């Protein structure tokens, strides 16, 4: 990696007397059937590996959190894959967020009982925002994650559902603001245009999400380098970054990301 292509922000030196919350590195596992898959812009998916094996590998390597997304659950209305969640949760002792096909309070309960710590809701939340309220009031807001999958439409970002297939006519800014009212505890924002492309995060979208809410915001879609993490965490002030394709392909490694970010003054979890 050698040379550093970006400069250290002189205004935010790493100083043990300045408290900054730690930023999170999250691994994204897109699941289809029994396998982890990865496509580009949510299409043309190919098999990457086994969910439990990959989760366990990333846990051992020091990932802070795992985001599991069942990519077909909401499309076909198929039953949730609790068996896979159970398997994934078996050997990892960091938080696990599960999304895809969470349509009711019972779906959420089932996922939590299978080993999820948080549930991410997108499609069902758009058609029935009260679901967000039900989940957050029953299980706590720390458990209810709003997943927003957005595509650039003219000068704005539109929310899409069903794994990037359906337009909703709902726009990102308004949607995040109203979801916060419904009690969600975290916003997970994915750029469909960048998903799987390794072209870098869409910083404008992330900044927009950041400006709409005080909640923790996690960015996803297009991460290709440590610099992408740095920009997302510093320029867009996100609380965490989620990485899929670049991690699966070995373009970035977890300890490398962690170490380089720490060198650049970003508070990271110390993994022993």
């Amino acid at each position, binding site marked *: 990696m050698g040379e550093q292509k970006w400069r250290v922000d002189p205004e935010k030196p790493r100083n043990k007397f300045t408290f900054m919350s730690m930023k999170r590195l999250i691994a994204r596992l897109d699941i289809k059937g029994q396998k982890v898959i990865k496509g580009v812009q949510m299409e043309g998916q190919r098999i990457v590996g086994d969910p439990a094996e990959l989760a366990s590998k990333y*846990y051992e390597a020091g990932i802070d959190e795992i985001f599991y997304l069942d990519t077909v659950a909401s499309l076909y209305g198929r039953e949730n894959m609790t068996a896979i969640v159970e398997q994934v949760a078996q050997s990892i*002792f960091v*938080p696990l967020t599960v999304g895809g096909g969470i349509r009711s309070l019972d779906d959420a309960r089932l996922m939590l009982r299978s*080993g999820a*710590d948080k549930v991410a809701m997108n499609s069902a939340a758009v058609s029935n925002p009260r679901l967000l309220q039900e989940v957050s009031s*029953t299980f706590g807001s720390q*458990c209810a994650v709003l997943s927003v999958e957005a595509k650039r439409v003219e000068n704005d970002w539109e929310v899409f559902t069903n794994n990037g297939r359906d337009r909703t006519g709902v726009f990102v800014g308004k949607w995040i603001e109203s979801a916060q009212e419904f009690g969600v*505890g975290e916003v997970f924002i994915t750029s469909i245009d960048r998903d799987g492309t390794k072209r870098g995060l869409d910083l404008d979208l992330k900044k927009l999400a950041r400006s709409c809410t*005080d909640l923790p915001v996690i960015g996803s879609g297009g991460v290709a380098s440590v610099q992408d993490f740095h920009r997302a965490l510093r320029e867009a002030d996100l609380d*965490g970054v989620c990485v899929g394709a670049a991690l699966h392909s070995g373009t970035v490694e977890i300890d490398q990301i962690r170490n380089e970010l720490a060198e650049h003054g970003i508070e990271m979890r110390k993994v022993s």
Partner: protein
Amino acid sequence: MTSVVGVLDYGCGNLHSVLRACARFSDNIEIVEEFQNNLDLTHVVLPGVGSYSNAINEIRTRGLDQLIHEKLNDGVPLLGICVGMQVLTTEGHENCFSSGLDLIGGTTEMLSLTKSDNSSRIPNMGWNAVMPGINGNDNQLFAGLESGFDAYFAHSFEVKPNDRTDISASSKFDGRDLVSAVKRGQVYGVQFHPEKSGESGLRVLKNFLSIDVLT
């Protein structure tokens, strides 16, 4: 004496994460859903996610408060996790007022952001350093862990003990101290999730499960 770990199930939360983590260190784990008379336990774990009022209502409805009091009388150590720690206090100030188990005198209150450092959020979600051993309240729970080990937090409320000597670890939030663990006698509580805090968290659970019953 072989350990028998009772994990209290009151219908809210991530019971199975706690079970899986405890199963690393004990072969005898009982899921306890309601009060039972002749239950032989060496450790009681009270997990928790969700709200204070939901949790305490469910605990009472199932008679688990009685079980907790009985086991503590027998000298059995208790570990409350997250909301499980919050309900140990005298009362919770949520949307409404709820009375708690009163094992740790004090209140549970909503987190507030005062001196915005621009990086703290509510809920407080993510990894944070834990500093044990303040107030001389050093305990076995943190044996073998460095001061400043990182743990995973996910909460919107915090515990404020009346007696500061009940505080056994603190963390930083919004530029100030946050109570991240309490201890009073055999009553232990952690605000973070040891079952979700990687190897350090597992060590906390392991330490708890090696605490002896007081005779």
